[in-house]
């Protein structure tokens, strides 16, 4: 069963409560005496790409990890489809920035991608076909039997993305996934991600420190303020899709958003 067919069985719900995949409700996070996050209220809608951006120390990665169930909120809660998130779940996939540490180096590319299938109990006979198709989708056909360390950084991150797709998650949480890659590779991966997101109507929360990346990818950009981290602004991105590395970035609306958010972030960073 492909990811696309899974989506087709569940057409987007009409009522607003059903279309909320993740809801962060009055959440706060303290580590010892230090407040990391405060009063976070956020809803992630089905099928949207939500980008989280903020100066360092604004707790954007902490917020993402809270959504993923890796850390629990000190106050308030995170709800996934109405149920409280208390631990990581296969329904919510997490793409780590450091692909080199997140892939199992002793498993081949295929072995890594089959990991969620093993977790889910997919029959052995079906696994190979699924991993082949996913590899094809992320542009890595014919690398099944290669070990991750034999691949470039961009290719390793593609493997990690394919692995999370094998989870067929409801939500994809991505923590600065392209931050460590060179500019050309980053742009290529941005476009591939958008293409996959469009085909499969994926719900994505994308953390980045790169303002232009946030606007380019997002349907909405959430800007966090620092010390303690809190939501400072939520901006709708009304740029047409499919987006294009040249025309989208030259669009006056893109530039206007960039100006607005840039001014805002500079001010927040100064606080």
């Amino acid at each position: 069963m492909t990811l696309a067919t899974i989506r087709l069985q569940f057409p987007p719900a009409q009522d607003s409560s059903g279309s909320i995949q993740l809801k962060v409700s009055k959440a706060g996070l303290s580590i010892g005496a230090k407040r990391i996050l405060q009063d976070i209220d956020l809803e992630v809608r089905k099928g949207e790409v939500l980008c989280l951006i903020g100066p360092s120390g604004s707790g954007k990665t902490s917020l993402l990890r809270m959504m993923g169930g890796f850390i629990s909120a000190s106050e308030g809660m995170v709800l996934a489809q109405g149920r409280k998130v208390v631990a990581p779940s296969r329904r919510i996939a997490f793409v780590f920035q450091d692909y080199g540490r997140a892939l199992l180096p002793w498993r081949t590319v295929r072995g890594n991608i089959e990991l969620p299938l093993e977790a889910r109990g997919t029959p052995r006979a079906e696994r190979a076909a699924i991993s082949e198709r996913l590899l094809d989708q992320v542009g890595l056909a014919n690398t099944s039997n290669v070990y991750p360390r034999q691949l470039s950084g961009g290719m390793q991150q593609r493997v990690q993305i394919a692995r999370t797709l094998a989870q067929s998650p409801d939500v994809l949480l991505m923590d600065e996934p392209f931050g460590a890659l060179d500019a050309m590779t980053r742009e290529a991966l941005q476009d591939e991600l958008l293409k996959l997101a469009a085909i499969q109507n994926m719900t994505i929360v994308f953390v980045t420190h790169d303002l232009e990346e946030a606007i380019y990818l997002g349907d909405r950009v959430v800007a966090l303020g620092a010390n303690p981290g809190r939501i400072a602004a939520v901006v709708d991105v009304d740029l047409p899709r499919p987006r294009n590395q040249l025309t989208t970035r030259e669009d006056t609306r893109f530039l206007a958003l960039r100006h607005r958010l840039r001014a805002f972030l500079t001010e927040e960073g100064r606080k």
Partner: protein
Amino acid sequence: MRALGVVPPVLFLVAWQLCSWSPAFPIQTFSNPAEVVNALLQSIWDGTLLRATAQTFQTTFCGLGLAIVLGVPFGFLVGSLPRANRAAVGVVEILRPVPAVAVIPLALLMFGFGSSMESAVVAFAAFWPVMVIARAAARAVDERLIEVARALEFNTLERFVKFLFPAALRQLFVGFRLGLGVALVVAVTVEVAVNPQGLGYSMTSAQAALRPDQVIALLVWIGLVGWTVNAVVALAEMRLFRWDPLSGAHR
């Protein structure tokens, strides 16, 4: 470069043989290369050498196997649970410095002469390097991998089998190799000291019979055997860790 390594031993053998023809040479202690080779071939031919080697190997690997079976889980336990480590550290630090030969009398009381006693002493000696390295390996497992395991909702057993153990195996192998070296040394030591079997006992018998050629032949044989075992382990390591671009580079 390989050929260069052959030069010193050949020179040494030639010098030794030449010296042994001098009347001043203590032939009763050092024999000469020709006699040593003769003694070696003789003991291979009559089967005594291979039988003794089999005995020593049996106790070496039984003891090492026991050390691994006990040492790896124990090391993992204290390596991944700080509280378990605090509870165990007192006993470990008192027992670890005890020389393996010092437990021979107790092992004799428990098992009498024979393979069981020797294996027990070998296991005691090899347990420590295996356990200490397993502990360090468990501590060194990347937390990111554990998070991946959590994200995919693997249970404790699956986390151990699919994540912890393979992640630690590269390092565990270092412990196995150290343990193997210790095991072989201790097995031969126990045989030289008390146990009437194996290569160690063959050497004490040859010494008692005033046969320096046999004593030296056995020394050479133990060296060759040790080298072979190491080569086999190194080969296994290379096959096992093909995924690691560093493997093989250091030798």
